[in-house]
Each structure stands twice: as C-alpha cells, then as structure tokens.
C-alpha cells in the first residue's frame, strides 16, 4: 500500500475498507477519542481525533480496518537492509524456536543486518535522566515511549504536553544510531534501508507523520503479523539455518522487558507509576489534571493492555508473550555487557522537538460561539435518551449532541426523537426511512426492505 497524505495533514495508519465494512458500530463504541462515526452504513474515521491506538481494528468483526504498511519488496531498493526487531517479536514465537532461528530466518528473507531495538535502551535511559534533571521539568515526567499516548495527550490532555519527556523512543534511537554506524563504515545514507518490524499501528503513523521531529530515520514499516507468518512458515519447513546472534544473546533483562508494562517505570528514580490500557490511561490522566500535587515523578503510560505484548499486530496471546519474555529475561544477565557500543546520549540526535497540543475538544475557537453551542448542547442532552445505543451513527448521546451543535448531525437521527416526531406528525415514515438509510445504509433499512 502506498503512503497517502490526508487533507488534514495527520497521517493515519488505520483505514476503513468500505467494501468490507458492515457499519456495525463495534469500532465506534470502543474508540477512546470518539473518532469514529457511521454514515451510509460505513465507519468513518475523523482524522483530527484519531490517535492510531488500533482499538477499532481489534474490535472489528469483519477485519474491515486495515493497517497500512510498506511493501516488503521495498527492502530490496537498498544495498544495506536493516531489520529493526523489538524484543516482543521474539516473544511471539514458542520457546523451542530460538532467537538464532528467527534472526536466521530474517536474513534468508533478504535482510543484511538484524538490530535489536531494545539494545539502545540504556541510551534512552540516559536521556530520561538528563531530562528530569532539569529543575524546570514539569512533574510528573511522562514517558513518550508509546506513540498512541503521545497523540492522546496532544488531543485530549493539552495541559500535559509539557510533561512529555522529549526523548525519542528506542525504535527511533536505534534507527539513528545504526544508520550512523553504517555511514561510518562508508555507506551512503541513500544505500541504507532501515525497516521496523512493528506490533503497533500508532508507530506506523508516527513514522509516516512524526511528532516532535521533522522526518523519521526509519525508511519503512513492516507489519509484525506478516513477518510472523512468513518466518514461522520458513522455520516450520526447516528452510533456515541458525544465525549466530551474539548481540542478542547479550540483551539484558532490562532491555528485554523495556516494552512490557513496568519495563520503564522500574528503572526510574523517585515515585514511579505504570498504567496500561488506553481507557485506564485516560481515567488516570483525567484525575491527574485535577490535583495540585500528585507527588509522582515518572509516569509510564501505554495504550495497549499489557503494553506492546498487546499490540494490534501481535498475533499471539499477550499474556503468553509476556510470560515468554519474562522467561527469556530470567535467563539473561542483569547487567548490560555491551554498554560501550551504544555510546552516550547525544541530545542533538535523540531529543524530540517541543510537542504541540492540538485539542479536539473545543466546540468553537470563538468563546461566545462556543458558549452558544454549549447551551444548545445542554438542552439537547435533556431530550436525548442517554442510553448511548449508537444507532444514530455517533458513539454516545453526548457525542450526537456535539455533532448536532457542530452541524454534522440532526436531532432526528436519534431513533427516540424520530418516534416522537412521527407521533406528532412532524416527520413522515418516508422521511424517517430516508434518514435511517443515510446512517445505516440503504440496503439495511428494514422498513424499505419490507415494502
């Protein structure tokens, strides 16, 4: 699939395939930012609101939400083909399949170098320490590891954008570090292709449309599910040899577990907390906004349940993935053996620019207009039934009321209001059919079908 730039300038990895979508509202009701509506029997994603968490994709019963990715064959456009592998990828495979086989498989598929993303965790850690040392840093410092969380804070918690730690996540740090290493070996930057095997839709979006950096160092993203299928097939058919991967054998337990829940928080100073699951995070941040002194120094927030092990592109069971990684971590050393290789934190290379808030909540930029809309919204909420049935094509009654005051919906889209209007003679059955057809799709309108 080719990269497409949206009209709003926000690139998203998630796309609804109209031919498959049945307009069932499952995705709409699980979306944590109310970014989905159903119109003409199809789900529509509101681009300004979407944070690419992938909840919609997980909830879709007919796999109608696609996650964009680059064509695997793209790797052959480069002489140096680096696969960036997160430790959670290794955790996908049953324990009897060793890391060496996985890496050997990647090489036989065409990669020339395999890089453990989590081998740069110590660099990121150094960056965190630099960041929180600054007395001007807002407490709690919030990790910017999870790209869906960074976007969630931008759109829903604008007061907390300055709390985000301006340090790039391990995948970006690894890409920058290894690109430089290859350049030092005499390769041109254009000869080096860095491909990230990712479990995460938000990561894909953040590489295609980076937040806090001009352009990503990663050349392409490869869907982890796709890679898993390809590799498992090779390994099952014994078409790969075992690659000697001394580097990986030297990943320490901290590195292996960094992307799991509490992977970061356990290694930071002071009072640290880890929250996973985007709804839990939202609830937590709502509370955080309302207190003067939280006394929390560091917050690790992850959009997926069980962090990256619960990523939308993870094929295995997330709890088994966590268990496997814990076992691998138990077998690994605690101390890092190869600290010297990664070097030290370079603020110019590995820092993020200031992350901008882009609140989606305001009803209008003009305060007076916003107040008029707010008053109308309160009135509408008295009429709407409050059962959040989603039959109107908006996720909740409140969301419908917001859509109405924004001119994007009508009160008669609510089936309860419709019923009242029909009884009062203010709406004919034909008009109601027309409305329902425009929400659920013509072919799904039961009244027109029964005729």
């Amino acid at each position, binding site marked *: 699939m080719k990269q497409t730039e949206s009209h709003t300038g926000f690139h998203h990895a998630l796309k609804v395939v109209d031919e498959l979508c049945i307009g069932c509202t499952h995705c709409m009701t699980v979306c944590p930012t109310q970014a989905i509506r159903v119109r003409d029997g199809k789900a529509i994603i509101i681009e300004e609101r979407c944070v690419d968490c992938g909840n919609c994709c997980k909830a879709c019963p007919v796999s109608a939400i696609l996650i964009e990715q680059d064509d695997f064959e793209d790797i052959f456009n480069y002489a140096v083909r680096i696969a960036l592998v997160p430790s959670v990828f290794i955790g996908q495979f049953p324990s009897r399949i060793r890391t060496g086989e996985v890496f050997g498989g990647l090489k036989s598929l065409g990669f020339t170098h395999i890089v453990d993303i989590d081998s740069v965790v110590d660099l990121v850690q150094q960056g965190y320490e630099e960041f929180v040392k600054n007395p001007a840093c807002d407490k709690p410092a919030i990790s910017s590891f999870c790209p869906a969380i960074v976007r969630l804070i931008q759109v829903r918690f604008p007061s907390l954008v300055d709390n985000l730690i301006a340090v790039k996540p391990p995948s970006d740090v690894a890409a920058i570090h290894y690109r430089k290493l290859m350049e030092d070996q005499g390769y041109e930057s254009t000869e080096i292709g860095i491909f990230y095997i990712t479990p995460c839709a938000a990561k894909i979006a953040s590489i295609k449309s980076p937040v806090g950096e001009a352009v990503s160092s990663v050349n392409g993203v490869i869907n982890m599910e796709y890679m898993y299928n390809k590799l498992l097939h090779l390994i099952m058919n014994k078409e790969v040899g075992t690659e000697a991967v001394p580097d990986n054998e030297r990943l320490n337990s901290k590195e292996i577990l960094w992307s799991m829940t509490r992977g970061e928080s356990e290694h930071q100073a002071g009072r640290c907390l880890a929250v996973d699951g985007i709804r839990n995070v939202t609830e937590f941040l*709502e509370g955080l906004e*309302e*207190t*003067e002194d939280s006394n929390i120094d560091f917050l690790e927030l992850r959009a997926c349940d069980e962090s990256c092990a619960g990523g939308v592109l993870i094929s295995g069971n997330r709890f088994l993935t966590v268990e496997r990684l814990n076992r691998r971590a138990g077998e690994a050393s605690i101390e890092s053996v190869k600290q010297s290789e990664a070097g030290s934190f370079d603020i110019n290379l590995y820092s993020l620019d200031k992350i901008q808030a882009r609140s989606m*909540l*305001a009803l209008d930029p003009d*305060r007076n207009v916003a*107040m008029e809309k707010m008053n109308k919204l309160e009135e509408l909420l008295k009429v709407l039934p409050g059962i959040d049935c989603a039959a109107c094509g908006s996720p909740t009654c409140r969301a419908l009321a917001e859509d109405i005051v924004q001119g994007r919906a009508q009160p008669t889209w609510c089936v309860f209001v419709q019923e009242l209007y029909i009884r009062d003679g203010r709406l004919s059955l034909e008009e109601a059919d027309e409305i329902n057809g425009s929400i659920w799709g013509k072919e799904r309108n039961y009244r027109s079908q029964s005729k």
Partner: protein
Amino acid sequence: MMLDYHIDGGDFVNAGKASSAVKRVLKQLNVPAKRIKRVVIALYETEVNVVAHASKGEIEVVIEPERITLTVKDSGPGIPDINRAMQEGFTTASKEVREMGFGAGMGLANIKRNSDELHIESIPGKGTIVRFTNDLRD
C-alpha cells in the same frame, strides 16, 4: 451559562465530580489549559472541604465569556477565624479524614492561590459560603 451541583457530606468517593464536569465544559469552551487547571484545583479543594466538614453543600457555577464565578454554600460548622484558616497547614480535620489523605490544612490556601478573587462568609454553627472568580481570557 449556569451549572449546579450537589455535594453530600462524607462522600469522599464522589468529591471531585463537579470539578471534573466543570473541567470538561471549560475544555469545550476553548479556555486555555493553565486557566482551566486553576479553576479545577480551586473547585476540587472546595468540594473536599464540604465533604470533610459539612453535612451537605450546593455549587453554583456561572460561566461568562471572560470569567467564571463559583459559589459553594454548605451546611456545616462554619469557620470561626477565617484568617487563621487561610494559613497553610491549619486544619481541624479529624484523624480519620487525615488518614484518608485529606485535611492536610492546604485547602483554603490552595483555593486562594488558584483563584483571582476569593470571598468567604461564614456563620459558626450554620455554614460557609465560598465564592471565587477566575479570569478565563486567552
């Protein structure tokens, strides 16, 4: 626009419901984040005061384009010496309340710090009215 909320004395679980609701409204009105934070903290502290000390209270919120005025009336013990109560660390909260993490004696001081104009009237034995106004301009 006007909003009303009711507070039940002793109901710590629901302390903060009104400040959450007001926060949502102010976000939708495109009020700058730093201004929202001041309003929300001051209101939250007021809510906790009512829950901790009074039997019940009513909150009245008046939002105008450039300012917000919050009036919180409670049926409680009243504050005999308001100046003293404004000092940081002054508390009459019971041991139980303090063990729950409330009643550290920062309440009124926090309200003062996070409000632009604060007015307190109190009749010992009857109740207290806390009224504060904050600027909402960009």
